[in-house]
């Protein structure tokens, strides 16, 4: 028990230390705006991948509409900060909430579909969101939404990433999360054990969409400018690639995947003509030799909080 508390304190100290260290490096200019840009991209990708992993990796619902939720969050945030001049924290939360509501609305009719059918339905949803955005002049239509104030910085990214990981992990380590994993493993058996499968699929969708919306908000308020095509089908695929690359059903796999893939594409920017070729070859090799993703289902030992309650209980003597 005591060592567990100590470990949590250590983890907290490590995270605060990391935050302060990077903040100081930004302030004194060791991390220039180019590196900061990449840190922001990595952070947004971590949020997207971890939240998609809840839907696809843990609940087993194959979704190709994650970028659409991000898009809804980005536009919500843009409207709130640029048009209505409201504070960023409000924009962040409302972006998550609107994306979440969209997730519930799209989830209720489509989540009775399975596997590839669900993938096609969510793909269609992504297209609907994109086309609606293109044809709406209030939010700039196809030209895009300009002059969004820049609020996103290292502090917001850091808080959002930690909150996403913490909350999704907490969700997974409860009976709600176990129900979601049970749905992935065997829907009929889960149902016969009392799991309301429709409810939990929609819940996973809503939570995943919330964090995707949050990521969209961070994105919009960093890059000044968003356009509907930034959140198309290919963006959804990119997120899915991160999840699969890191390991489906592993939160830390998603984090690792987001970081390593972002760094790989960063290094490949020097050779633009071969960039996508090498990127694809790396993906190909990883999938052939480690088909369960880089980390598989493994979680890092130091981060492992799963067995916390159980350890406190101890084993029962015969």
């Amino acid at each position, binding site marked *: 028990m005591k060592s567990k508390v100590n470990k949590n304190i250590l983890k907290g100290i490590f995270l605060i230390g990391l935050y302060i260290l990077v903040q100081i490096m930004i302030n004194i200019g060791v991390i220039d705006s180019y590196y900061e840009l990449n840190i922001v991209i990595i952070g947004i990708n971590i949020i997207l991948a971890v939240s998609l992993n809840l839907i696809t990796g843990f609940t087993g619902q194959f979704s190709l509409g994650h970028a659409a939720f991000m898009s809804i969050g980005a536009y919500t945030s843009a409207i709130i900060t640029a048009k209505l001049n409201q504070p960023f924290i409000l924009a962040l939360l409302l972006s998550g909430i609107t994306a979440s509501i969209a997730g519930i609305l799209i989830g209720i009719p489509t989540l009775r579909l399975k596997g590839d059918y669900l993938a096609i339905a969510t793909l269609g949803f992504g297209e609907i969101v994109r086309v609606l955005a293109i044809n709406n002049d209030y939010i700039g239509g196809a030209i895009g939404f300009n002059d969004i104030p820049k609020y996103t910085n290292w502090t917001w990214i850091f808080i959002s990433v930690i909150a996403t990981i913490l909350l999704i992990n907490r969700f997974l380590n409860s009976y709600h999360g*176990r129900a979601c994993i049970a749905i*992935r*493993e*065997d829907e*009929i*058996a889960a149902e*016969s054990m*009392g799991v309301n499968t429709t409810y939990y699929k929609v819940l996973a969708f809503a939570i995943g969409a919330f964090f995707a919306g949050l990521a969209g908000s961070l994105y919009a308020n960093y890059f000044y400018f968003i356009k509907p095509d930034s959140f198309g089908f290919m963006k959804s695929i990119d997120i899915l690639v991160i999840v699969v690359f890191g390991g489906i059903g592993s939160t830390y796999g998603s984090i690792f995947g987001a970081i390593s893939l972002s760094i790989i594409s960063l290094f490949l920017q020097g050779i633009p003509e071969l960039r996508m070729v090498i990127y694809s070859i790396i993906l190909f090799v990883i999938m052939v030799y480690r088909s369960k993703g880089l980390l598989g289902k493994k979680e890092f030992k130091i981060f492992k909080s799963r067995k916390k309650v159980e350890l406190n*209980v101890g084993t029962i003597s015969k």
Partner: protein
Amino acid sequence: MWALSVNNLTKNFGGIKAIRDINVNIEKGKIIGIIGPNGAGKTTFFNLLTGIYSPTTGEIVYNLDSQVRTKDLKPHKIVHYGIARTFQNIRLFKEMTVLDNILIGFHNRLKYGVGSTLLRLPSYYKAEKSTHEEALELLDKFDLLNKKDELAKNLPYGDQRKLEIARALAAKPKLLLLDEPAAGMNPIETKELRDLINWIREAFELTIILIEHDMSLVMNICEEILVFDYGNLVAQGSPEEIQNNERVIKAYLGEEVEEC
């Protein structure tokens, strides 16, 4: 007292009449066996009882915790009514640990909300702690405690069957449905299973309905046997009555045809 009453139950799949107009009352506290040739409608009957199929006509009345009268029933609701089941082809959560499999069985009895999950309120810790304790106790009773961190898919076949039964019992059912529990077991394992089922009935005060092809198990353990053939309930009675019932013998062995 009856636990379950089936009235005029019929199930058609297109033109196939899988279950034809079945009427039966199941008494509380008994072990009931369902036998019959392959394709006789035994598993369909189970699926109707557990809401996986909805009946074409007729209704099922459950009298377990409270009386529930139903024609259409959502599968996830049956646990609320006090029914748990196992499956013919074992349906464990393969990539989850043995302990997590059992914990899913408690799903219905846990009540803390998503909010207290995310904020880690005391209600979360309290409920999770007592659930873990109960789950470990249950695993201990089934001799699976030392395998609690093993993935379910890595267990030997007999343990998988046991785990599936333990998972069903975690839901604290009043009626346990076992679909071919002895399938694929050797005679020694079957004998162990027999003792296990008897012990479960005593320890958990259950009504048990089991589908089984292994006659030595059925005849030894069941107090009452239902015989299905072509979707009809052709006989109902004690093992002795069933063994001497002409229609049952006909269903299993066919009838003699006089040569002309």
